[in-house]
């Protein structure tokens, strides 16, 4: 899959995450801002990369504002953003 347009998913509510995704030419660029950055920053990035890999996405810019979302919620929001911004190659 390829990101063909800018898209977002999720909210800034507590326990949720807001994800924006944009087309990019070379590689992944992931920005994470989180209220639990110290405790879970690395895990969040790993989760995001996993979901991107599931969709075989190698080029995208992803920005996440995390409000303490559980992993299953982050996965859902990233997947929704991908579905909304993506198209087949």
């Amino acid at each position, binding site marked *: 899959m390829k990101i063909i347009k800018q898209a977002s998913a999720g909210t800034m509510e507590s*326990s949720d995450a807001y994800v924006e995704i944009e087309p990019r030419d070379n590689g992944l660029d992931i920005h994470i801002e989180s209220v639990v950055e110290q*405790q879970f920053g690395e895990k969040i990035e790993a989760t995001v990369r996993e979901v991107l890999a599931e969709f075989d996405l190698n080029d995208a810019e992803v920005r996440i504002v995390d409000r*303490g979302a559980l992993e299953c919620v982050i996965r859902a929001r990233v997947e929704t953003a991908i579905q909304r911004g993506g198209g087949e190659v």
Partner: protein
Amino acid sequence: MSKLVKSIKEVVELVGLKDGMTVSFHHHLRNGDYVLNMVMAEIAAKGLRDINVNASSLFDTHAPILEHISNGVVTGIAADYIGAGVGRAISEGILEKPVQFYTHGGRASSISLGRTPIDVAFIAAPTSDPMGNCSGKYGKSACGSLGYAFADAMYAKKVVVITDNLVPYPLTDFSISEDYIDYVVEVDAIGNPKGIVSGTTKITRDPVGLVMAAHAAKVIEASGLLKDGFSFQTGAGGASLAAAKFLKDIMVEKQIQGSFGLGGITGYMVDMLKAGCFRTLMDVQCFDLTAVESLRENPNHQEISALQYASPSCKSAVVDSLDVVILGATEIDTDFNVNVHTDSNGYIMGGSGGHSDTAAGAKLSMIIAPMFRARLPIVTESVTCVSTPGQTVDVLVTQGGIAVNPRRKELADNLKSAGLPIIDINELKEKTERITGSPKKLNRGDRVVAEVIGREGNLCDKIYSVSKK
């Protein structure tokens, strides 16, 4: 003789304040308080340095104190509670000497024993007469009880009453009496009524909070303590208030008449008094207008001092007769030690207040907290800061189960036979981490920014600076 002084500026001269001295304040005006800032501004203007501030609590409204710290006017702080605004700066290391955190009972006790002597106490009084008989029940800035100010008034070398409602001598229904007071100053306003007490404190609508509250009420019911003569304290947090409401329903239905409700008093405790759940309210601080009005009107609603409330060195304190207290936590570890001083990133945003005092005194001390907040598990291997030692904490109520301190086996048995979902605290920790993942430990800074003093005057724990990335 006249004790009336025209201005705070003048009284700062008269009391003989010098570099290095200690001034004290109480926090019944909470986030609406003007007095601490007004007094400290005059102290700074006079060019004094190296002043110690002993305040029962500091709120965000007291942020100007940070400038006095930066300028060297204030070099020492003792408090029972510091809000997030001032707390953040402390955690970032603005003050060289560690803040001394006391408990409400421990602060009063230390003052009375002369361990923390006060040179000048400033008492924000919503009503006073010219000789200093004063009260919090009347006036536009009414805050109800003046409980935390009594020890300051009784033991400080000089005592100044600052009021915005000067009434003719004598004020009949006084709380603190003229025999302790040196000077009285009238000002336009001692505080902003909006920040002093809230109109109403509300029960939580958060579903998880309600589930925990229902569990909490059932724990109390099953503990064996809920019978005639029952006594109770709860915090003003949403889930704690909901627990009080559920408890009231049980008490009314079973026609149980308790002896007293204690603590910071809210409208919900007043409702329980009116419904016959208690004979008396023992009130060290009012949280809302309903509580203020009740203290003024209802003879069964009694103001008490912090000494009587919780001092471990008094001949007796009310907490020693307390059956059940409901408390909060930002973290609790598998030994039941509780942190209420710092937030999840290590910043100071609270303090013990009466937490440790009531936990130590009550027959059943209960913590209510959700299994996790913003992905952070409530149960940790070891808390960032021990505010209240685990030996004094009996039970943790979460939405995902109730953990009983292993020291209280008979309590665990009672709760189990009442059909409550009991869970080992280590299991609860694992169960939570299966949901959240296990958090990486915080990096802490290398400087001690605060010392937590236990109620007996012992060093309980140290709080470290927050390392900024």
